[in-house]
């Protein structure tokens, strides 16, 4: 996988393939940002990556704000969707989560609080292009 990565996808299994390839690159301490409209498949992408680490219980953290999963890798899965103020993230202990070198951190809707994000990250954007297609792009920063 070379960055920046772009691909048009038509089916779920194409997302799974990209996620599998991407999962092999990730190492503990890295941060993955995911953005794109409601229903574009951010959680599905995280779920597909985690499947390759033997983690099968990934679900949406929109309500809980943060989920943790453990198996071959330790994963922290954030969703900023319901967060209103940056103080809430500090209060939840966001900095402790992202400074942990033993976990991989996924953040859905990261664009809502760009200020709080580390400069070094993978940024994934998923776009609807038309009714049956989506476009996934992955950029490596820092």
């Amino acid at each position, binding site marked *: 996988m070379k960055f920046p990565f772009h691909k048009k996808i038509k089916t779920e299994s194409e997302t799974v393939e990209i996620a599998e390839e991407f999962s092999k690159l990730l190492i503990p301490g890295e941060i993955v940002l995911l953005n794109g409209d409601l229903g574009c498949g951010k959680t599905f992408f995280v779920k597909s990556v985690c499947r390759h680490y033997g983690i099968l219980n990934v*679900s*949406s953290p929109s309500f*809980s704000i943060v989920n943790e999963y453990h198996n071959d890798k330790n994963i922290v899965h954030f969703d900023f969707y319901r967060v209103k103020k940056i103080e809430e993230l500090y209060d939840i202990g966001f900095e402790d989560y992202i400074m942990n070198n033993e976990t991989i951190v996924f953040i859905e809707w990261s664009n809502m609080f760009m200020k709080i994000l580390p400069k070094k990250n993978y940024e994934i954007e998923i776009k609807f292009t038309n*009714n049956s297609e989506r476009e996934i792009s992955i950029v490596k920063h820092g």
Partner: protein
Amino acid sequence: MNVLGIESSCDETSVAVISEGRLISNLISSQDFHTNYGGVVPELSSRAHLQILLPLVKQSLAQAGITLNQIDLVTATAGPGLIGALLVGLSFAKGFAYSIKKPFIPVNHIEGHIFSGFLMEEKPEFPYLCLVVSGGHTLLLLVESETEIKKLGTTIDDAAGEAFDKISKLLGFGYPGGPKIQEAALNQRTDFVDFPIAQCKNEFDFSFSGLKTSVLRFIQKEYGDASKIPNEHLPSIAASFQYSAVRALVVNTDKALRKYKTNSISLVGGVAANKMLRDEFQKLAGKYKKKLVIPSAEFCGDNGAMIAYRGSQLHQAGIKYSFDFNAFPSLSDHTFIK
């Protein structure tokens, strides 16, 4: 025996007292703190739990007419939830129990919901089928006894309540999504759009992500985007969505009622406040001739009463916990649900 129950797993801080098996106080921050102490309660904040907890405990004891030393058992939610928020209630409970030399019981939040029907006059009878539906959880369970709970199905993506919240935001109704969608959908046609009901590999699992995406796709295809939906279409879209979401919950419950021998049905959690869901469960109960227990609204959302109740249940079962018991973020970390 006086039991103190503390809940602080998410947005709500709640404190309750159960005395001789009877609930005598159940204070919930969003309703009770506001009015009595003034000021805005910030959401999702451990600091907010910290500020509210002590006054709420004092107020609750005053309402119960007892003093600190008259508490015989201290219970608190230990998980699942936000670690920072959980730690506030749990650490307080441990410190308090230690100082008055009384036992302390950590409670699983979901188990609190599962047994919340026992706070009602008419209680569920074992074994019972329990559907837990809230903003963060969707679980179908066979509750065989106080310590044997079999998980039949769960959501593989979004929780039911989350689907309501997201679609409500999409349609411009705002938060909280459940009541807003319900209000808009009242007396509207449910067949305006035929939204799908997901079929999962495990016949009792749920999926609400596909439903969310299909509402979104419908809007994009028909109107371009949500801002261009004619006002007169909004209620019918809301009603069609609500119908599909409720059907998905009902269909799996129906299947489970056919497969498992049960004496009662219990519908619990925040989404149990939904009128259509309640009505559909009444029909199910009638169809299978089962006793149906749905807690009243104050016990559907997060509350301290269910924590105090579940804590006393575990205490009576002779289960003991030490003071080094820690908060846990995920449901699977510490539970009788297998």
